[in-house]
């Protein structure tokens, strides 16, 4: 039990380190937020100007923007570590690998959460969708989505960060794995916005929870091998 508490403390310390670095440098959030805003604008150009169609497509656009921006965010968070061989230092600490993974994923989750909420607001404004009335299910979906993207993203950023072609490899590996999350999150968002007429919201949220749990476990179990090599 105390071992688990120690791991949690390590994870929190690493997440706090990332948060402090982020608050001081704002490597991940500012560029990522701007990127997602540009993506939303381009979606508007691609599908607009019919506002009814944009509103109907809003859940999908929201999550595509979040996922694309998430790719950038997790890359930035890991580049932070490779700059001065920081990841090697981190790997040398006598703490469990799971804790390091959890810490990095927690930091990523915080960034993804901010990102998700801002993009949600932007979608509400740009595509004339009423996001305030269904705030609780939407918030739940965004939290679950943020956990999943951070869990998968931390793992794949760790896999690709030391490769020559990481800009190509990260999306290539990560996007197909995120497909179920995208699907469930879009469906949950659409259901929440429509007032859940078919009572399917719970099922999609459960799928998100299952995805998050499986990916966190898989990431925690394998991340240690990454640090070793």
């Amino acid at each position, binding site marked *: 039990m105390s071992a688990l508490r120690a791991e949690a403390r390590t994870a929190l310390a690493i997440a706090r380190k990332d948060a402090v670095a982020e608050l001081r440098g704002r490597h991940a959030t500012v560029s990522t937020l701007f990127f997602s805003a540009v993506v939303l604008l381009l979606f508007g150009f691609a599908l607009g100007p019919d506002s009814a169609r944009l509103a109907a497509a809003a859940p999908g656009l929201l999550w595509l923007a979040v996922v694309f921006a998430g790719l950038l965010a997790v890359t930035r968070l890991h580049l932070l570590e490779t700059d001065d061989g920081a990841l090697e230092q981190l790997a040398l600490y006598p703490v469990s690998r799971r804790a390091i993974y959890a810490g990095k994923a927690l930091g990523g989750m915080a960034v993804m959460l901010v990102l998700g909420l801002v993009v949600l607001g932007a979608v509400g404004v740009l595509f004339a969708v009423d996001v305030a009335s269904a705030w609780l299910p939407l918030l739940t979906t965004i939290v679950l989505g943020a956990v999943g993207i951070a869990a998968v993203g931390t*793992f794949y950023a760790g*896999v*690709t960060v030391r*490769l*020559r*072609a990481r800009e190509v*490899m990260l999306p*290539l*590996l990560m*996007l*197909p*794995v995120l*497909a*179920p999350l995208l*699907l*469930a999150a879009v469906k949950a968002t659409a259901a929440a916005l429509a007032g859940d007429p078919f009572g399917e919201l719970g*099922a999609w949220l459960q*799928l998100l929870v*299952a*995805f998050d749990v*499986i*990916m966190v476990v*898989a*990431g925690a179990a*394998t991340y240690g*091998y*990454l640090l*070793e*090599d």
Partner: protein
Amino acid sequence: MKTRILGFAALAAVAAMTAIALFVVPADLNQGDAQRIMYPHVASAWLGYLSFGVTAISGILWLWKRDLRFDAIAVSGAEIGVMFTAFAIWGGMMWGRPIWGVFWQWEDPRLTTTALLLALYVGYLLFRRLTDDPQRRATRAAIVGIVAAVDIPIVHFSVEWWRGLHQTATIASPDRVLNPAAPMIFVGTLLGMLGAFTLAWGYLMIRRYQLARAELAREEAVRIGRLEDARRGVARSEAAR
């Protein structure tokens, strides 16, 4: 020699089953000749899944035993799996055009799942090429292969919930075989094709594995050669001095 015999046996079996599927088995009452695509289609889809399972398990064994032979099996599985999966998708599209009226049916869960499966393992193969050190490549590939395999069931369930219209498993429910006059001959042909394709799969796996071992050996030889070149260069410069 034994592998060569297996190769010829596989070739003969596939040719024989193709002839049976094309000329002996009657055409389906509802779907006509297009239904004949089902025999190689189902067989290659099944072998795709089998190959990716082999890749995941060899990945775990590499992480556990640290024997590069497991990595050679893993890459064989991924490459051959991609080939069979692509073939299954292609066959499905050829079948879908006359039966569904479209090449691609978004509402079909298995089609979309299989397409994602293909994307996952093409990514895996591309990813492998980026690391030169064999040990490191094996480790990285193993964990990517494991996470991809973990993702497959989630993809499957999520897409299934999207509502689908794929032909449900034919063997599990014989009453779904549409021609009432000869259900057994359909099932028998499918099983025969499955057996023939599995023989071919076994042959390809063995050959690809041998190739992977040869590639590893060549990489090793190149590395040793470079070391010796460097050593000779140092010796020469010392002699010149």
